[in-house]
């Protein structure tokens, strides 16, 4: 049917165009490729029509089970969240999603204004002065934050809690390799699941570039010693980097209120689907003193030649396309559409909606933890107050998850692979998507397991 060629309009008039270009055949256009390395064909099956493609993909989709088919209580920094249809409709506007990075501001005012609004909202939520238009994800945002701390104060040690996700830790270590930044880990308190303040104090000094604290942390636990931690960080003259879950900021203080210098986080939960862990949204905000050290695109407000309000990418001399090897980061393509999703989602919620969403997530987290904790053989591993994720200890986590799966439920994330000290511990996650009935279903399955 030649259907794929629908995307190549000149397919049918190639010969005419070749002639008009003064060429005899297609080979002439590729005559500069040495003969030894020319290939004739690619060993990839013949193209399918759109109809057959859709059919093939339907079959493949059946091999997955989404949250719609299977109840899941997985934590690990990612959970299902409700996505309003209005948000889906907004980001489906092809003027947005088929655009490139807004190099030509006059033809990109819509996207630029939306990014300016995104930056404004992130600043409101985090209590920082400025935000960039996005980084790849929370993990790479942490990497960039560590590099920025070291650029600012020329120090070469970055301190993190032992209990951040192993994935983040690994990404950070890779980002730190270039400038030779040493990563130091501070243990968590075995009882509370919080960062061990005493050990933190012992591990930092005047040579520490930055200290990273997550709130809530990877175990879902709130770091309620945050003011003390902040003071300890300031006392040694280091920079304070705070990792957030934006959904929690409806009920918890902005990190700006407790002395953060840089705030990062994973913003996927703001209207983006789980998407198997990607497309993600790296939130990056900081104090304005660090503006010129900030990585990534930043959108600014300015005027056009008529004096009318206009927007454009700004402070581009920080960036790779101008500064090349001396850029603050190599980032070029970011996660623009996910930022657009986030600003549409936040405006749909409004401040009241965000507070409510935050509260629901908190309440469900408490409810599910106490329900599971009351079942014989299951107990909450840490004593501290948590948000919508929490750690449960049981007798045999693998067996529990296997039996849950047989009942059509995906259980918590088993932690011992990356945290051997947490044998038979599982990280559960819950959100506004889980009804009381869902939680009851899990509880009764656990009772049977």
């Amino acid at each position, binding site marked *: 049917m030649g*259907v*794929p060629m629908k*995307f*190549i*309009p000149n*397919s049918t008039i*190639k010969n005419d165009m070749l002639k008009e270009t003064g060429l005899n055949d297609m080979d002439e256009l590729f*005559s500069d490729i*040495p003969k*030894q*390395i*020319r290939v004739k064909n*690619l*060993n*990839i099956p*013949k*193209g*399918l029509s759109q109809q057959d*493609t859709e059919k093939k993909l339907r079959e493949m989709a059946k091999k*997955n*089970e989404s949250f719609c088919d*299977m109840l899941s209580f997985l934590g690990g920094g990612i959970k299902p969240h409700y996505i309003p249809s209005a948000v889906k409709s907004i980001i489906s506007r092809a*003027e947005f*999603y*088929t655009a*490139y*990075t807004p190099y030509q501001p006059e033809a990109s005012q*819509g*996207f630029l*204004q939306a990014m*300016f*609004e995104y*930056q*404004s909202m992130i*600043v*409101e939520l985090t209590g920082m002065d*400025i*935000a960039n238009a996005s980084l790849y994800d929370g993990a*790479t945002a942490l990497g960039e934050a560590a590099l920025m701390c070291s650029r600012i104060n020329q120090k070469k040690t970055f301190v993190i809690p032992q209990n951040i996700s192993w994935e983040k830790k690994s990404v950070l270590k890779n980002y730190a*390799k*270039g400038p030779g930044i040493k990563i130091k880990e501070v243990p968590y308190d075995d009882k509370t699941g919080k960062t061990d303040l005493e050990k933190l104090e012992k591990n930092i000094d005047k040579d520490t570039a930055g200290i990273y604290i997550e709130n809530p942390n990877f175990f879902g636990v709130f770091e309620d010693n945050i003011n003390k931690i902040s003071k300890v960080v300031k006392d040694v003259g280091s920079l304070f980097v705070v990792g957030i879950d934006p959904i929690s900021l409806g*009920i918890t203080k*902005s990190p700006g209120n407790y002395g953060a210098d840089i705030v990062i986080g994973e913003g996927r939960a703001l209207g983006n689907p*789980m998407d198997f*862990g*990607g497309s993600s949204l790296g939130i990056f905000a900081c104090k304005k003193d660090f503006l010129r050290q900030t990585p990534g695109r*930043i959108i*600014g*407000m300015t005027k056009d*030649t008529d004096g*009318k309000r206009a927007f454009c990418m700004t402070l581009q001399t920080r960036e790779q*396309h101008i500064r090349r090897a*001396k850029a603050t980061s190599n980032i070029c*393509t970011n*996660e*623009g559409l996910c930022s657009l999703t986030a600003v549409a989602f936040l*405006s749909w919620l409004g*401040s009241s909606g965000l*507070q409510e969403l935050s509260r629901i997530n908190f309440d469900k987290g*408490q409810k599910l933890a106490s329900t599971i904790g009351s079942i014989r053989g299951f107990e909450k591993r840490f004593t501290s107050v948590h948000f919508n994720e929490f750690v449960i200890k049981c007798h045999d986590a693998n067996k529990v998850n296997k039996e849950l799966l047989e009942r059509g439920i995906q259980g918590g994330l088993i932690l011992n692979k990356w945290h051997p000290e947490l044998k038979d511990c599982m990280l559960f996650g819950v959100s506004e998507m889980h009804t009381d009935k869902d939680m009851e279903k899990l509880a009764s399955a656990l009772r049977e397991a």
Partner: protein
Amino acid sequence: MYRSAVYDEPLLNELESYAKECKSEPITLLPASLQRKDKPCIPDLDETQIVRHFFRLSQMNYGVDSGIYPLGSCTMKYNPKICEEISRWDNFAGIHPYQDVSTIQGNLQIMYELEKMLCEITGMDYFTLQPAAGAHGEFLGMLLTRAYHEFNKDYQRDEVILPDTSHGTNPASAAMAGYKLTEIPSTREGTVDLEMLEKALSEKTACFMLTNPNTLGIFESEILEISKLVHKAGALLYYDGANMNAIMGKARPGDMGFDIVHLNLHKTFATPHGGGGPGSGPVGVKSKLEKFLPIPRISKDKKDGYFFDYDYPNSIGKIKGFYGNFSAILKAYVYIVMMGGDGLKETSEVAVLNSNYMKNKLVKSGKYELPYKELRKHEFVLSCEKLKQEKNIRALDVAKRLLDYGLHPPTIYFPLIVKEALMIEPTESESKYELDKYINALIKIADENPEIIKNAPNNTSVKRVDDVGATKNPVLTWKMI
């Protein structure tokens, strides 16, 4: 004549907002040190307001669906709607990355098969889909380079060489991975200068980064000699795949001698740019580098099907959370399934034909010059130097005037070795009619009254934007107004 929608659309915080009732009793369980006292300053609007706001903004934005978008080295091709639709199905978008492996066989199969297809397209042995963008892939490539040399106890290799035509991300990525940069000037033909390369190579060289065809759109015909020189010096050869749309089914970086390759799924494989992202920058390597690839890898077991394999003790670890930007991965997979091997070859042939067709007509017009070699691949770089000399019209002015015709300008002032550069990449998805329209506009602009061009654009939602003012006096949030 083209006219963009013009709205004096207020900012979200300037729209009429009403305070919604909300429960404000404090959450007593939450530690007092963390309880939020103030409401975050996000306006409370109704859905109609929000939808109209973003709808109007969208109408002041240009995308590939608005028209031709020939940004050089960006490969702004049509993004098939079917790819969008499929990527939003719950059974793809609604999957948690840590689900039991038996419930994600579809996703794993897609990733596994895409890796294999990318290997075939590029001639590499193994691929990872983890990097989130092209520059991210480059950064990974540099980390792999480091891991390789360190594994071989070749610790003194701390330099990366690249030509002066390279993309800005190349030096930035190499610098981020801790490398010193050496830039070598191109020949008068616009290609790699073998003598300069040989001089620059030493026992300190870790890698030579190259785009082929390069950013002038010229194929580096001496690539086999380049490869020989680089490998003789014990260095690795890195392929920036931004320009892969020129050679699919015609030649493969793997056969040219490249050791590491990154691709941009959001260029060559038709996934949208999303106004800046998300993209996807898979990285392919030759066997000798396999063991350093990020984890997890995707493997296949006869009995249990596909699974995540973490058992790579020499792996560099991770470059991004989870497994890559899955929606982009899925869209690229759907695109390749539709195109097939022959369709991809046809893609590159027509992309190169379109580019040369435009180049010929524009050069013939005598209005623009084509520095360096005649034959180009998928893109070509014209110079407006003549216009500048004669009428004081710069590349920026031409770009802005194109906007008045409803046409997106090309990349300008890049590569740096062409004065007043217009870097044009039409892609295969534009018809001859669209190409002619663009050619005619460029020719017409060259003859227009310089006053008009200097004052362009006029038909866009705002007139020429003062970006210098934006930098001098940064206003980056609504709080700063």
